[in-house]
């Protein structure tokens, strides 16, 4: 057990040190290119540094996400962080439980869906128009959110998709074969405020 702990600790330290080195390396290239007037090269190096930061932020978010959601266990192999070069920022995802009845959380920075969601959440008229028995607006840990239910024809349980805008990031929480109280119970185990601080 002790050996295993030392092994994981060493890996974590190595990863952090490598990320720091990459970031510092890209920044050093950016500075050199900029001072020698190679603006395009400086631009490219800055973009790489930005991706490095996005990757680090993604890993930090994964660290604060819970290891378990009630009875649902974490699927460590499905932990995923992706830094984008376009205007969409980093994408972070993690899943819990089985594929058919588990939960998945996905955080996308600068998601194009943010504007659409905010207009539904903040305009009562539009929110009212978009409301039906399978869609509703609610509050989760003080954040406005939209819950969508996709009924399952075979049983009473359904797939629930909860979209929570956190400033420029969008948190999408999907739970398959579940009930609304169960979904709300799960989401309350996700530290939204801490995620918002990291990703924005």
């Amino acid at each position, binding site marked *: 057990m002790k050996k295993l702990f030392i092994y994981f600790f060493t890996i974590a330290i190595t990863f952090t040190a490598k990320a720091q080195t990459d970031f510092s390396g890209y920044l050093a290239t950016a500075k050199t290119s*900029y001072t020698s007037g190679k603006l395009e090269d400086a*631009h490219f190096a800055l973009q790489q540094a930005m991706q490095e930061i996005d990757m680090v932020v993604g890993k930090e978010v994964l660290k604060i996400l819970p290891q378990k959601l009630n009875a649902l266990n974490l699927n460590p192999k499905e932990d995923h962080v992706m830094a984008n070069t376009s205007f969409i920022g980093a994408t972070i995802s993690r899943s819990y439980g089985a594929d058919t009845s588990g939960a998945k959380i996905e955080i996308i920075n600068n998601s194009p869906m943010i504007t659409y969601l905010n207009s539904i959440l903040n305009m009562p008229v539009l929110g009212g128009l978009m409301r039906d028995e399978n869609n509703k607006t609610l509050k989760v840990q003080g954040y406005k959110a939209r819950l969508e239910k996709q009924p399952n024809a075979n049983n009473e349980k359904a797939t629930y998709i909860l979209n929570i805008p956190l400033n420029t990031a969008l948190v999408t929480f999907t739970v398959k074969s579940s009930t609304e109280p169960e979904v709300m119970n799960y989401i309350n185990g996700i530290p939204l405020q801490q995620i918002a601080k990291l990703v924005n």
Partner: protein
Amino acid sequence: MKKRTTAFALAATFLFMAAPGHAQLMKKLKDKVADATNKVINNKIDPNSDSQGNTTNTSSQPGNTSSGKPVNKGGAGLKNTPPPDVLQQMNDAETANKASNYTDARYSLQQALMGVELQLGRKVLLSLPATVNNLPKDSTQDLVSSSQWGWSNLTMQRVYKDGKDKQLTVTIGNNALYMGFVNMYFNNSMVQADASQQNVKHVKVKGNKSLIQYDDSKGYTLITPIGQTSMIVWECINFSDENEVMRAAENFDIDGIKKTLGEQ
């Protein structure tokens, strides 16, 4: 309620029809209504006027609107903000990253990228010709904007005009307005094959595949995609023919612009 209204209307109609002098009565009534209406309208327009329509100057304050809200008479406006200090922002990013303050590190990097993009944009504008087909540049309309990092929102614009009715506007960068149009014509063989209406056609500007379009209301538009997402767009108003447009475009160093932007 409906029945009562109908009965009242019928009674009034009968009364007016039955009266021998109903025309005079109607005229008097009409005049009275017109008088009353005019008074109400006048009072609404100028609340200071008395019943005779004379205006009093008691509460009118200069610089105030009728609602009492002051009118802005001028100010110094906003100062033109210099582009972000790139080196300072890079240093800030490094410090924030070392302190594990990733949000600030990211923000500083964004600022540095914006600063680099604005400088690149100015460099491109400086490389553009001062005169095109005898049209001098209007440097007051030079524009470089970068709203987000990545090339997706970096745009440079220069206007050439003779001060009368002839104008050339050149826009370099990501142009969402024309991107769909360009993709449609370059990537869709069906559309390319339909040449019955020659409002759009393929041309080459200094060896670069381009599209030229004519519209009576807009004039000529010449589009040259450069690299993966950028393009140069020449919008020519009151140019005599497409040859004049092509001659104007050949004044621009397309390879130089590509090189500056790092496009292939």
